[in-house]
Structure formats: C-alpha cells, structure tokens
C-alpha cells in the first residue's frame, strides 16, 4: 500500500545491496539496552566457555588477549531499523576461542550470556567459520561501556541484539533455548535480509 504523500529519502543506488529492507542508514552509533549500563573493569572480566552447565575453559582479560587477534569490518543492522556501514572491530574469533579450549562445537545451539543477566541464542553455525567474534576494540579503541565494553559478542550478519553486550560466556545447549529478547517477542534467528524482527516473522 503506497502511503499518500510519502516519497522516502533518496537512496544511493550503490548502497542498495547493503541496506536490508526497512532499514535506514545512520552515521552515529545509537545505544539500546534493556537496563542500566554495567561497568565491568577488565581486571574482573572473565569469559567462560560452557557445554551445558559445565565450564570448559575460563579466560581472564590478559589470557584472552594472548589468543589470536582478528579485525573485522562489517555492516551492522539493528532491529529498531538503523543500519551502520563499515564498522571496524577487533577481537578474538569464536573459532580461535574453541581452538584454544580444544573443543569442536558439540551442539548446534549456543546461548551467549552477559554480565547484566542478558542472554541471546545464536545457532552455532552462525558463530564459527570466521563469522563472529568476541570484540574488545571498536574503531581501534577499547569498546566503551555503552556499546558493550569491555567485550561484546559480534555477529554482524544477524540483527544487532544478537551481538550481546557485556558478554561473559558462551554456552552450548542441547536445544535452541530462547534468550532475553527472544522470550519477549523477538525472532529466534533474526536475519535482517529476511526481516525476521518479531516472533512469527517468516
């Protein structure tokens, strides 16, 4: 249905294949979260890899930075309809975390957990093969607390609520267990190109 009198903003045709449907470009970096911004000092920061309830390996901040560092520049897409192009991140690929722990992915499902109690589910296949990382630098600088610092999950090809801020654990689960927003009406997978915003979207 065309909306009377609405013509939309002129889009740069060169960017058409980079902006998913229903998204608008932003130059700044909006902040969204369900609660106050937690402040986590890097000396207290710990990251745990778990299989079910069982911790497999725990890294402190310094140990974590001994893992191979990778840079990723990606477009990101928030379900609240902003997209941001060419965001530059540095951190540790999930592949390198698994390798350091000496585990092959044991299940097809993963839950990311955060310091503030947040969680989000991501299929394991979407985290490996160079697709995702635990990011600690944004645009070459330590990730600010508002954007999830000291460390956040980065899964750039899914809506950005999947890129859990203040991340402190990845947990392999037997079944697909819904996370915080997924239990509150948001889509279990969240592919921006298919506009999987809310529960029940195809």
């Amino acid at each position, binding site marked *: 249905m065309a*909306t009377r*009198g*609405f013509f939309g903003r002129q889009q740069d045709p060169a960017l058409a294949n980079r902006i998913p449907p229903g998204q*608008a470009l932003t130059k700044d970096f*909006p902040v969204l979260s369900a609660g106050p911004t937690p402040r986590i000092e890097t000396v207290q920061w710990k990251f745990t890899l778990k299989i079910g309830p069982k911790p497999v390996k725990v890294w402190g901040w310094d140990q974590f930075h001994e893992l191979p560092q990778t840079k990723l520049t990606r477009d990101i897409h928030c379900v609240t309809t902003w997209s941001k192009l060419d965001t530059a991140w540095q951190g540790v690929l999930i592949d390198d975390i698994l390798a350091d722990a000496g585990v092959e992915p044991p299940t097809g499902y993963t839950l990311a957990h955060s310091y503030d*109690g947040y969680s989000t589910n991501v299929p394991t296949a979407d985290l490996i093969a160079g697709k995702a990382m635990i990011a600690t630098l944004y645009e070459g600088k330590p990730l600010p607390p508002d954007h999830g610092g000291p460390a956040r999950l980065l899964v750039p090809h899914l809506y950005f609520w999947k890129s859990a801020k203040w991340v402190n654990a990845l947990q392999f689960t037997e079944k697909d267990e819904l996370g915080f927003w997924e239990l509150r009406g948001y889509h279990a997978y969240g592919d921006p190109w298919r506009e999987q915003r809310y529960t029940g*979207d195809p």
Partner: protein
Amino acid sequence: MVNAAPPLRWQTATIEKIVPQTPRVSSFFLKLSEPFTTKAGQHVDVRLTAPDGYQAQRGYSMAQAPESGPDRIELCIEELEGGEVSPFFHMVAAAGDEIELRGPLGGHFIWRIDDPGPILLIGGGSGIVPLMSMARHRAASGVPVPMAMLYSARNWSEVIFRDELLELNGKRDGFDCVFTLTRDVEKRDGVHARRIDSAMVMETLMRLPALPAHVYICGSNAFVGAASGAVMAAGVAEGAIRTERYGG
C-alpha cells in the same frame, strides 16, 4: 526455530485526528482495522511506502491506557530534524490518511497493575510517551499503587501532556509528578531547573512510601545513562531498572 506464535500482521490504521501537544510534538490518534489489546509501555512499528515501493519503518510508543479500548491508539511523535518518517507525520499526514502498522510490540518495558510497587517513572523529552501510558493505566484502573514520575523537559512549553499530568497530580491519590526544566528561563515554584541528578532523584523517591520495586526510564541515551546512574546512586538495585533509549 522455536517460533510458535503467529506472525504479527501489518494492518491499515486510519488517522482520526492530530492534536498538537508542544511546538515539536503532536499526538496522532489512529483507528485500527484489526483491534488489539495493549500493555502500558508497548509500541508499534509504523511502515510508510513510497510509490516506487521503498519502505521506511519506525517504532513509536503508544500513549493511551490499555483501558481506552482495543480499537484506537495514540502515537505521540516528535518531529526530528533531518528525519524521514517523523517529518512525514508532521508535514504531510492528515486526518483520514491510512498508514500501515503492526503491534503491539515489546515485552520488557511494560508495567502491569498487579506488578509489585511502588513505581518510579523517569522520562526525558518525548521519552514521556510510554510512561504516560503507565500513568494513565494506573489512573484508569484505580489501582492505588504508589507511583512517582520525574519528567525532564527543556522548558515549560515542551512538557508533553502537561495539563493532564497536573490534573493527575492534583488528585493526590498516590501519583506524584515532579518536573525539571533544563533550559527554562523562568523559575517556577516546585519545579526543578537543572539536569537530572542524584539529589533530584532522591527527593522524588522521598515521595514514595518505600524504595520502588520497578523503575522505568525512557529518553535519549545520555539522559537514560544519567538517570539510571542517579537512581542506582540513590540505592535502587540495578535489576529493578528497565530502560528504553530513543534515538542515537
């Protein structure tokens, strides 16, 4: 995938009337073609379509109380400079126009009357909109849960729902709204004239019989950051605070 719920369908809603609230904010009263029941604090997604098929979507909080019925909603939209959707609403949209929306959306920033109280609401600018739905829900339901609101606006003329909030305040039935104006030149009795801070939050909390069980903060990111910091400094547990941040 574990999606069991049916998809939220887009529906056509008709603009019934547009009521200016402040110089930059108007209320858009919409009649739904597919009625739905809401919870206080929820939002809808609005979708506009250009003749070439280009679509723009935005989420807008609803201001009406759930008690106002399933047929009509009130969106309260601020015109944002350089925006794409809000200028359409302010400069083009007229009564009788049809727009597409879907909802209700949001399962976190919501208040139910049987949730434990007291309740503290803190809004900055147009962040008042979902909080207004909560204040109206309380009034319409008659539930006596103590509720305090701290509302920060730039000046008195930009206080959205001002007369209604003053009227709710006047009932003295356990709802208590405190204003602060950050850029007003004229000093007013009982109205703060500075940015939100811990002392102001503490003073607002003193109007409640106990620490709030739930705090809802909505506004710009900077506002929400400052307000949630002040609330935690006043002794409220982090886990009691829910936030919604507008814009970038």
